[in-house]
């Protein structure tokens, strides 16, 4: 790789030194070769050739060793070095050519590397001139395979193989039996030499990589955060839709302690933050002190909230009446109890996901907050039947009850829930008992049918015991059960109840069709096509429908919905595979989940 002209790049001090001393890779390689060959001579066993062909020179020594190996074959218990060699010879010509080319390329590459990087990488590759150097360093004294030497322990003569190991204490080599006796496993592969990490490319050459520009929204949030203290610059926030801004900022976890102050105001009575993940406990305390007049507070993803925050809220939010928290899992029972004690006027307590809300908390809540009308204990780990007597004390005043997705799906029996609804059902407008898997048809007949008077929203998702015939009969006989009858439902969510099908759907449309605005029958896989197609005709007020995994839904089902339901906003059809890309659409109606759409 000598370059035709004499232009050279910068070289390191070492390179210069080696060059001046006349050390080049060829001299090093030669030295290594002579050294390796020279060594075995004194130990090599006696042979005819040694006497006769001595003048043949260095080149013959290898052959010499080979011959010996053939001679002492019986002594050599292990595979000899030769075998791979003969195997190699059997390679086809094409393979050989390939190997050669590879070797050439490797050598070339290495040389180049050596030139550029001061020979730093050369020991990795075998074909390189510099492997000679590394060979020189390792196992310098070991005679070549096949030569005869004396065992350092027992003194018998044996032939060296690739498995011969050095004596552990002192110089010399051990024969196979001695080696085994000393407890060394001769066949154990020596620890692979630590490979040098391939040098990382200094330049990134991924030219086709798409740049990720910051989105306009995140840029705006940056600007807002920069000017957060400058009321003049941001203009009057009051004239804008604060809720919309709150939703926009909540995306990408952008709400921080700095820009959250945008939503704070002494006069605020309502505050909703849709993603409070980045609000640490001090920020949540600040929230309370900057909005002392809040009556309603909702924080989604408030996972950082802890006891200290709640303790601060005890004093800084005196007029709080309704609190909605998603994920306050760090708050412990004593903190909840003191919070209830300091907020006796609380009318709404809605939390999701708390493994620490226990029976004492429930007791304290009912004891202190006597005006409670809304209660949500969704995904509460410790919910069990002992909670129910306390909830029953809220009979008559409770309008919204959500005990869905308990930590233990079988925590509440069907009878216990029936009793509960018998006690509090008369005032309930919203009931959610999703995820109680023991719930069966009997609950509908003995709980809801005789006791619900003004129920508008019923959510019973993932209650697999409900049957098609039972639900159908319930809806057919509900209006006759009491006087005055319960009004038709506005919201019905019975998703993931796979047993339910056409009869239940027909009966519920007959009962509540005129009033239904939200319907979720996701997972009613056997609901027949003709029943689904009259959805649009029977339930004209529908706004949101989820028909996911109802396998019989077709374009005609959607057509009826889109044409007949004037206030329709959203239809979900995930998993409805009979819908085609030609499914009817209308401005203002979002049809979500048409799977063929992806291929248009």
């Amino acid at each position, binding site marked *: 790789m000598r370059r035709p002209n004499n232009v050279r790049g910068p070289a390191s001090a070492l390179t210069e030194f080696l060059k001046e001393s006349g050390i080049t890779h060829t001299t090093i390689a030669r030295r290594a070769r002579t050294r390796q060959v020279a060594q075995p001579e004194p130990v090599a066993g006696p042979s005819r050739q040694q006497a006769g062909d001595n003048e043949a020179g260095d080149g013959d020594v290898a052959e010499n060793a080979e011959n010996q190996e053939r001679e002492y074959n019986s002594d050599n218990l292990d595979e000899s070095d030769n075998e791979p060699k003969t195997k190699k010879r059997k390679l086809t010509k094409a393979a050989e050519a390939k190997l050669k080319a590879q070797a050439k390329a490797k050598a070339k590459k290495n040389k180049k590397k050596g030139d550029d990087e001061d020979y730093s990488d050369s020991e990795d590759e075998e074909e390189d001139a510099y492997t000679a150097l590394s060979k020189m360093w390792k196992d310098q004294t070991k005679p070549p395979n096949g030569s005869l030497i004396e065992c350092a322990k027992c003194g018998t003569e044996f032939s060296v193989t690739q498995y011969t190991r050095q004596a552990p204490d002192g110089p010399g080599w051990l024969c196979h039996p001695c080696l085994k006796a000393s407890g060394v496993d001769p066949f154990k592969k020596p620890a692979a030499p630590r490979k040098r990490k391939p040098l990382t490319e200094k330049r990134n050459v991924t*030219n086709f990589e798409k740049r990720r520009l910051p989105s306009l929204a995140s*840029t705006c949030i940056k600007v807002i955060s920069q000017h957060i203290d400058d009321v003049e610059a941001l203009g009057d926030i009051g004239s804008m839709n604060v809720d919309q*801004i709150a939703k926009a900022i909540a995306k990408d976890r952008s709400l921080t302690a700095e820009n959250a102050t945008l939503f704070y105001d002494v006069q605020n009575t309502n505050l909703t933050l849709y993603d409070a993940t980045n609000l640490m406990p001090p920020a949540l305390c600040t929230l309370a002190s900057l909005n002392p007049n809040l009556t309603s507070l909702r924080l989604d993803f408030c996972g950082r909230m802890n006891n200290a925050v709640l303790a601060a809220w005890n004093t800084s939010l005196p007029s709080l009446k309704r609190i909605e928290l998603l994920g306050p899992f760090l708050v412990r029972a004593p903190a909840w109890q003191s919070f209830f004690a300091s907020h006796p006027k609380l009318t709404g307590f809605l939390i999701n996901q708390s493994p620490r809300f226990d029976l004492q908390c429930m007791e304290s809540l009912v004891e202190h907050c006597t005006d409670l009308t809304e209660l949500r204990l969704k995904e509460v780990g410790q919910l069990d039947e002992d909670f129910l007597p306390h909830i029953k004390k809220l009979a008559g005043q409770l309008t919204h009850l959500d005990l869905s997705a308990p930590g233990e799906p079988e925590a509440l029996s069907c009878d216990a829930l029936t009793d509960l609804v018998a006690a509090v059902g008369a005032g309930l407008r919203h009931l959610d008992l999703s995820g109680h898997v023991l719930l069966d048809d009997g609950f509908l007949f003995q709980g809801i049918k005789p006791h619900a008077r003004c129920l508008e929203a019923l959510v019973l998702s993932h209650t697999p015991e409900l049957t098609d015939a039972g639900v159908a009969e319930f809806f057919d006989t509900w209006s006759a059960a009491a006087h005055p009858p319960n009004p038709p439902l506005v919201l019905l969510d019975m998703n993931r109840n796979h047993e339910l099908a056409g009869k239940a759907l027909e009966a519920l449309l007959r009962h509540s069709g005129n009033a239904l605005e939200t319907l979720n029958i996701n997972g009613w896989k056997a609901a027949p096509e003709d029943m689904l197609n009259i959805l649009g005709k029977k339930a004209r007020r529908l706004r949101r429908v989820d028909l996911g995994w109802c396998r019989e839904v077709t374009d005609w089902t959607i057509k009826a919905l889109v044409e007949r339901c004037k206030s329709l906003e959203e239809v979900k059809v995930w998993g409805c595979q009979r819908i085609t890309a030609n499914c009817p659409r209308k401005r203002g109606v979002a049809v979500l989940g048409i799977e063929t759409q992806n291929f248009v």
Partner: protein
Amino acid sequence: MLQMNGKSPEDWIRLISTDGYSYLVQRKVAVMSGTLRNMLNNDFAEAASNTCPINERGIIVEKLCEYLQYKHTYENALPRQDGPDFTERIPPEIALELLVAADYYDSK
């Protein structure tokens, strides 16, 4: 994607603000916005007339167009070459309003 249905990426798209200003951008620039792309690639009236009404004030639409042009210009630039920072081009007075618009129009 851009070449669909014989529509040329060089076509001019008209964006009309609520206060009556219109802005002309090329299709390849307009489709940088996911929302506008959906409007223009489906069988909506917008696609037929190449005109999209935008429910924002003129100054917001103008800034939106500016960003789309910025995105179109620098998205395919070499990684090393940092484009200019768009932050400097947003006057704080319209940042909040623009955020709401961006949330709607700049979706992927």
